[in-house]
C-alpha cells in the first residue's frame, strides 16, 4: 500500500521503522525472528547446561544396542537380542497394522451407521443416533480400557478349554475366543501353493476383464450379459481346480490347546483386538456423522431428478448421491484416518507393542534416553501426518479441478 504522495523521498528516519507501514512490517518480523532465536537459544543453552550438569549427552548409540526385552506380537522376526532399532521397527509395523485395520473397520462401520441414520426406519435411525452420540462423547481412552477389560475379564482363559468337561469350547471347533486373544485357523503354504495363489491372482484379473467386456458389450450393442455368476465362477473354479490337481498344497492350521496356551493357527492378541475395536467404534461414530453430513449436503433436487429418471432408490444412492457426497466426505474422512493413527498411540494403556510402547515406552525406560526417544517418536508421527496431509492435498486439488 503506497500512499498517494510519498513525502520526503529518501530521507529515512528511525521513527519510520515503527510508524511507516512500509517499514513497520519489517520491524515486526525482525523482532519476531529475534524473539524466536532468543527462545531457541534459551532452550538450547538450558539443555546444554542441564545435560552437562547431569553428565549426560545426546547420542543415538542406544539404537544399536540389544534391546533385551521381548515383544508379544510382532510381524517381523524379533528376539530380545535384537537391537532397539529393530524393536522400534516392530513398533512402527504394529502401529501401521492397527491403524490400517481400524481405518478399514471404522470406515465400514461409519458408512453403515451414517446411511442407517438417514434411514426411514425410525428405530434403526434412532439406534444409530444413540450409537453416534454415546461413542462420540466418551473419551477413546475409556473405550479402549473398557473393551480391554471386556476381553480380559469376561472371556474365558485358555485353561477353561482344558479337561474332559471344559467350561468353554471352541466356536465351530476352529475359533477360540480367550482372554489372551482370538485364535483363528490360518493357511499353511505347502510346496506348490504358489501355483494356487498365482491361479487365483490370474482369475481375479480375468474376472475384471470379463466385467469390462460385459460393460463394453452393453454400451456397444445393448446386449446384457449376466455378471454375478460368471464372475463368481471365474474367481472360484480355476483356483479350486488347481488346488485339487496339485494335491491340496494349502491346508488350514487349526488352533489347538498346547501347553499353557493355544498353539497353531493365528493368534490375534487381546490388546490388538481391544485397540482395534475401540478405535473402530469410536472413530466410526465420527465418520458416521461425516457421511450423514455429506449425504445431506447433496441437494434434494439431485435425488428427485434421479428418481424422476426412473432410478430405483438404491441406484439413486449408488449412482447419484454417493459419488457427489464422497467429495464432501473424503477430506474429513482422511483426517479421521489421521486421528486413528494418532490415537493408536494409546496402545500403551493396554500393552500393545506399538511404536509408543516400544520406542517411547520400554526402550525409553530401559535406556533412559528420554530426549532421543521422544524426539524420534514425534518424528515418526510427524512423517505419517505430513504424508497423509500431502495425500489429502493431492486429492483436494484433483477434486477441485473437476469443479466448474
Amino acid at each position: 500500500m503506497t500512499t498517494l504522495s510519498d513525502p520526503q523521498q529518501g530521507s529515512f528516519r528511525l521513527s519510520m521503522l515503527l510508524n511507516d507501514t512500509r517499514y513497520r512490517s519489517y520491524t515486526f518480523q525482525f523482532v519476531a525472528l529475534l524473539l524466536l532465536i532468543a527462545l531457541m537459544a534459551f532452550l538450547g543453552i538450558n539443555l546444554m547446561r542441564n545435560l552437562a550438569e547431569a553428565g549426560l549427552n545426546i547420542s543415538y548409540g542406544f539404537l544399536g544396542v540389544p534391546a533385551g526385552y521381548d515383544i508379544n506380537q510382532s510381524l517381523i522376526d524379533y528376539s530380545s537380542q535384537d537391537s532397539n532399532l529393530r524393536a522400534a521397527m516392530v513398533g512402527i509395523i504394529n502401529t501401521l497394522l492397527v491403524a490400517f485395520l481400524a481405518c478399514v473397520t471404522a470406515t465400514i462401520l461409519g458408512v453403515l451407521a451414517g446411511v442407517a441414520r438417514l434411514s426411514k426406519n425410525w428405530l434403526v435411525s434412532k439406534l444409530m443416533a444413540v450409537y453416534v452420540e454415546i461413542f462420540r462423547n466418551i473419551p477413546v481412552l475409556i473405550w479402549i480400557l473398557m473393551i480391554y477389560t471386556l476381553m480380559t475379564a469376561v472371556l474365558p482363559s485358555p485353561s477353561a478349554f482344558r479337561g474332559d468337561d471344559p467350561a468353554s469350547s471352541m466356536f465351530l471347533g476352529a475359533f477360540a475366543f480367550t482372554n489372551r486373544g482370538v485364535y483363528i485357523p490360518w493357511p499353511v503354504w505347502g510346496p506348490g501353493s504358489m501355483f494356487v495363489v498365482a491361479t487365483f491372482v490370474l482369475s481375479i484379473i480375468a474376472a475384471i476383464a470379463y466385467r469390462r467386456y460385459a460393460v463394453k458389450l452393453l454400451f456397444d450393442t445393448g446386449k446384457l450379459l449376466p455378471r454375478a455368476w460368471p464372475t463368481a465362477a471365474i474367481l472360484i473354479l480355476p483356483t479350486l481346480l488347481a488346488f485339487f490337481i496339485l494335491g491340496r498344497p494349502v491346508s488350514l492350521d487349526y488352533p489347538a490347546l498346547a501347553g499353557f496356551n493355544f498353539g497353531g493357527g493365528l493368534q490375534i492378541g487381546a490388546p490388538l483386538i481391544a485397540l482395534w475395536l475401540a478405535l473402530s467404534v469410536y472413530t466410526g461414530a465420527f465418520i458416521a456423522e461425516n457421511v450423514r453430513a455429506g449425504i445431506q449436503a447433496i441437494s434434494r433436487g439431485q435425488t428427485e431428478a434421479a428418481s424422476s429418471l426412473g432410478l430405483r432408490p438404491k441406484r439413486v444412492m449408488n449412482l447419484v448421491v454417493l459419488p457427489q457426497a464422497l467429495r464432501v466426505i473424503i477430506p474429513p474422512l482422511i483426517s479421521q484416518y489421521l486421528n486413528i493413527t494418532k490415537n493408536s498411540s494409546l496402545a500403551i494403556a493396554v500393552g500393545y507393542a506399538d511404536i509408543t510402547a516400544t520406542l517411547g515406552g520400554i526402550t525409553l525406560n530401559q535406556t533412559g534416553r528420554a530426549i532421543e526417544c521422544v524426539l524420534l517418536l514425534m518424528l515418526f508421527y510427524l512423517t505419517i501426518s505430513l504424508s497423509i496431509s500431502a495425500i489429502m492435498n493431492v486429492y483436494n486439488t484433483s477434486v477441485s479441478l473437476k469443479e466448474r
Partner: protein
Amino acid sequence: MSDTHAQSVPFVRDTMLPQATPPLTAQGPVKWVRESLFSSIPYTILTLAALYLIYVLLSGFLPWLLGGVWTTSNIRECREVLDGAPGGCFSVLSERWNQLLFGIAYPRDGYWRPTLAFILLFVAVSPVLFSFVPRKLLFLTALYPFIAFWLIWGGSLMVPLAALLSVVAGYLVYSKLVKNNFAVGFFAGIATALVVWILSGFITPSLSGVLALEAVDSRNMGGFMLNMILGVICVSLSLPLGILLALGRQSSLPIIKLICVVFIEFIRGVPLITLLFVANVVLAYFLPPGTNFDLILRVIIMITMFAAAYIAEVIRGGLAALPRGQYEGAESLGLDYAQSMRLIILPQALKISIPGIVNVAVGLFKDTTLVSIISMFDLVGMIRGPILASTDWNGVYWELWGFAALLFFVVCYGISQYSQWLERQLQTDHH
C-alpha cells in the same frame, strides 16, 4: 334374462360421498409403525433385529443397574449381599465418591471449595454462552478466574486480589492508550500489569493470613476435578493463543506466517500423548537448571499449545469464510490492521467459528483423560490406580468405567447439544 333389464332402476349419484376416514392401517400410530418400521421386508428384518438388540442390551443392563448394591464397604461384602443375583456393586461409587471426584490428596474438609467453583463456573460462563443473559454479568466472568483460583488452590485471598488489581491497572492503561495506537496500548498495558504485580509481591507475603483458605498444592488435585480443571484452563488459555496463531498464519508477513505454520502443523502432526511425554520427561531439560515447574503446570502448557493449534485452524476457517468485502471495507474506512481485526474481522470470524471451537473444546476435554498415562490421578487414573488396586475393590470394573463414561458423556453431550443449539441460533441470524 331379458326381464332383468326391466327391473333395473337407473341411478345417478347427485351428492358427494362424505370423505371416508383412511383405513385403520393407514392412519395414526398404525400408519407410523407401518411406514417407519415395517415398510418392506428388509426393513422389517432390520426392525426386528434392532428390537432384539435393544432387548438383549436392556435385559443385561437393567437387572444389573436396578439390582445394584450401594451400601457395602468392599467387594466381598457386596458379593455376599448379591448372593449370585445379577446386580452391580455400586457401593464402590458411594464409598469412593470423594476420591473419584476430588482425588486422594485434596483436603477432606475442603471439598466444598471445588464444588462451589464448579457451580460458579456456570454463572460465569452463562453471559458468554447465552445472549439472553444480561451483559452486565460479564464482570462476573472477568472475576471468575481469580475467585476460582482462590477457591481451588487456597492460600490468601490477597494473591488473586493482587493479580486482579494488576490486570485492572493494565486494562486501564491499555484503554487509555489504545485510541492512539494499539501496539503501544497493548504493551503498556502488559508492562503496567507486570509492574503492579511485582509491587504487590512486596505486600502480599505479609498478608498471607488474610482471608486464607488452606493452601492445596496442584499435585494434590485429582479425580474428575482434575479433568475439569485441565479442560477449563486449557480451553480458556488456548483461545487467545489460537486467535494469535490464526492471525499469524493469515498474515502477509512471511516470517511470522512461517513460524505459525510450522508451529501449528507440528503440534497437529503428533499425538497428544507424545506432548505429554515431553511435559513429563523432557521439558525439564529445556528449563533453567533448578527450575521446578510442577507436573500439572507443565501439562497445562502442553495441552494449551495442543488446543491452540487446533483452535487456530478453526479460526483460520472462520477468517477465510468472511467475504473479502469485509476486509476491504475495513481498509477503506482507514482502519489500521489492529483496528480492523479488532473491530470488524475478528468479531465476525469468531462468531462463525464458535461451533468449531466448541468441538475442539469437547475433544480436548475428552483428551484430558490421557494424563492418566503419565501417572496423574485424574478420574481414569484414580480408577486404574488406587481404586482397582485396593483389596476392597479389585474386580469391580463395570460400575467404575460406567460411572466415568457417564460423567464424560453428560458433560460432552451437554456441550455438543449447546453447540448445535447455537448453530441454529446463528443460522437464523443470516435470514
